[in-house]
């Protein structure tokens, strides 16, 4: 075998590995219920949940007590509502947002978001 063949072989196998890893452990879009069941086996798998903010349940952010604790309620696409904890400063203008993608982990009684992607309605609408 020539060196070139070895290189091509290695490249193809790494390429395949990349393609296969695509099906592996990367995150998924789920609803809260699925997130709960995944968390039982794999508590450390980061999950994405597309949600809307609850208009009725109050959100809590009291920076004078703890600037790194923000709590609110959101419902997923199936309509299930859940408490969300975000251990960070409250994202600005969250109230004006209609759709929010939460990235994080399902805990027993709440969803712990490590990232919140806001989707401002104004950016979506064609004015």
């Amino acid at each position, binding site marked *: 075998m*020539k*060196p*070139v*063949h070895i*290189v*091509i072989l290695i*490249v193809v196998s*790494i*390429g395949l590995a*990349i*393609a296969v890893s*695509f099906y592996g452990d*990367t*995150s*998924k*879009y*789920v609803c809260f219920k699925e997130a709960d069941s995944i968390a039982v086996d794999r508590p450390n798998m*980061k*999950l*994405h949940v*597309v949600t809307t903010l609850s208009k009725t349940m109050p959100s*809590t*952010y*009291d*920076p*004078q*007590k*703890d*600037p*790194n*604790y923000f*709590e609110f309620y959101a419902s997923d696409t199936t309509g299930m509502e859940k408490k969300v904890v975000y*251990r*960070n*400063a*409250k994202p*600005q*203008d969250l109230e*004006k*947002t209609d759709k929010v*993608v939460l*990235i994080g*982990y399902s*805990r*027993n*009684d*709440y969803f*712990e978001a490590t990232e919140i*992607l*806001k*989707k*401002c309605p*104004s*950016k*979506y609408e*064609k*004015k």
Partner: protein
Amino acid sequence: METIVFNNEHLAIGNFGHFAVVLSFVASLISCIAYALSVNKNSQSLLQLGKWMFFIHTFAVVAIFTSLFYIIHSHYFEYQYAYQHSSTELPVYYMISCFWEGQEGSFLLWMFWHAVLGCILIYKAGSWQAPVLTVIALAQVILGSMLLGFELGDFKIGSSPFQLMREHNPESLLIPVLDRLGKANYLEIYKEGNGLNPLLQNYWMVIHPPTLFFGFAATIVPFAFAFAGLWTKRLKDWMVPALPWALVAVMVLGTGIIMGGYWAYESLSFGGYWAWDPVENASLMPWLLLITATHMLLINKSTNKYPVLTFILTIFSFFMVLYATFLTRSGILGNASVHSFTDLGLSGQLILLLFLFIFLTFSLSFKKRSMASLFFFISFFAIMVLALVDFKTNITIISILGSIVLLGSTIWFIRNLFSLYGTQIETDKLYSREFWMFVGSMVLLLSGFQVIIMTSIPVFNKLFEGSKASAGEAYYNQVQIWFAIPIVILTAIGQYFKYKQSDVRKVLENIANSLLIAIAISIGALFLFDIWEVQFLLLVIGSVYAMTGNIHYIITALKGKIKVAGASLAHAGFGLMMLGVLVSSVNKKVLSINTTGTGYFSETTAEGKADDNAKKGNKENILLAKNRPMTFADNTLKATFKGVEEIAPNKYFEVEYEVLDKAGKTTDIFRLHPNTQNNPKMGMVSNPDTRHYLTRDIFTHVTYESSMEQRDDKEFDNFRTDTVKIGESFATADGNRQLTLQKVNVLNVKNDASILHLQAEVVINSIGDTFMARPEFISEDKIRFKEAIVDQAGVMVIFDRVIPDPENPQGMLFVLSSATRRPKMDYIILKAIEFPYINLLWLGTFILIIGFVLSIIQRFKEFKRREAQMK
């Protein structure tokens, strides 16, 4: 239907602009056809026609640009584009930025660069002019169609930048106000434009997008040469002229990407210059493919090896530009990106653009012309039907069919290429430069492949109804570092080998020498940066090796001749850049770690049990109350929030920093002004401010501030009454604040014994801060109280009465009531991040770009010599 004559409209310029759009479209179409025919018929007159049509086209594009600029500059808000993207307050230099805020402007900019490149190529492409210009003119036809705004029933081709507001939004003529003003005066409601997104009002945003677009546009040139090579069957000749253009595209696109990163770092609050966001990846994918192609072109120039792969990579880097445009402009990235994108109804045209070029190139690989046409019509038609017609059936089936057509055609195309070029893989010697360059190119290719696959997740989701989420930053970093390590090492090793065959002993000697220097320096660097994890350690050594190896090569092999040292210089710069990336991200440190203020919610669950998750949670934000200094980052920094200045739409927060040494002495004082911006299009955004030192940056942004709090001032409670002597202290009912009666002043104005006016001076100690309350007691006809409220301490003090001291006949006792509520204070929530040695990254980038410039000059000269030889 009644015809209304509208007042105050400036229709002439819009009509002119629209005429220019149509002219540019028609001229590019004629140019494309004339050039194409001139290739097949080898006709000089057709070539001349194509050339002059392209000049007319270029003129028309400039005219479109000028008229749109004129409309924006004159604030003609009857035009939708001016209304949506500009305002009367906008300074002239930001008016240029209006062009890339909108979709039509972006395509216009892209067309403009294509036109400029086309004009240069008419003079510089020599014998390649006709086929190369055919490709560019074809791209112009399709891009131009996106500006036509031509409606045929429900079917709409493109959207015109010269559309009027009343056409764009006919309902606006029906709003009630116009009943009074009259419809003819509808412009009264469009007196002021929406303005440019304030985030884009930044000098980097004036130059970053045009640079990036130029880079994108320039990828068409190497593609056009490859296309022309296949078309005219000059199968290897095309690589010589393509090489310098590929370098130009790689350099400009790379510069554009880095500028974007620098802009993000300087003015966005995500805390970094690169986040592997799909939009960033969209510009990186073509860059990685093109840099791979460039290296393959270099190999080919000297050895004629791997022509098929070189061809494929060159054309795919251009396809990747089209694909990236589709990704960012079709709205498909919706959930995956922080940047949001809207589907402006152009995805159909973008898909058409992509597949037209793909199948056109593929069909050229057939030897028989009839076969080529047949293949093109069938496959292109099939894919367009599958992509654009709504079959109202299972999407997955359609997608699988589409994938089969695409994959099948690709395989057929590659097979054809091999039969054109000959299939044999030439023997490669282990001790040749081309072998190691090939290995390096393959690593680059894999790196690009990974980015492409991961960024395409939303596309796969759409095609096959999946629910995969895009990979995060950490995932990319973890994978990509394993590509970065071999790449930096190979940049140092590769060049010691000569093409075809080299003196093994000498090569190994050189490699070993420069490696020893690299290891010696790396050890110092490792101790300095304190980085010891295996993959990081390897990358440090590799990056340093890329620098020492390349500099060593410039000195010893090139004898310091800087004109030919472009590649080595670029590689050394790349090493430095990688070192900067590594150190600034691995050692990136949040300074504002909160050591107080936790424990209220965060550490217990709803059932009151200790919550382990809380410990893992971040404490990266601290509260700075106004004028109350706070020390953090292991007592190395002291920050004081000094105040707010509002310059709409921005609110600047002045934060004074003191850098402290170990003894607590101040070594440096500076002020930063991070701001929040009430962005009309994106809501509140916060923008950082950064202190730059030579070896580190202190990056600061405000994540929250007191005025965002939605508070209802509650009534005071926790009343209690104390009877005290002067100098005596007492606490509020909740025990949180300490009050001391310091003094009582007699404020009687007149010498009237019937009036008694007293003022108590009460010092309030609240969480380490001192305030003064001055309640008053007035006894006239009746008794009155003037309570003192200190909002910042949340305390009210009432001076109730004075009684004689039973223990001391001369003394008096004072009865004071106190009550509390939540303190109201001005504060900011602040996050501070340290980026160590980020200047290595910027310096490395700078050297990299200089290296590119030198190479480009060198390669253009080579092409000139080649053309001269042919004559």
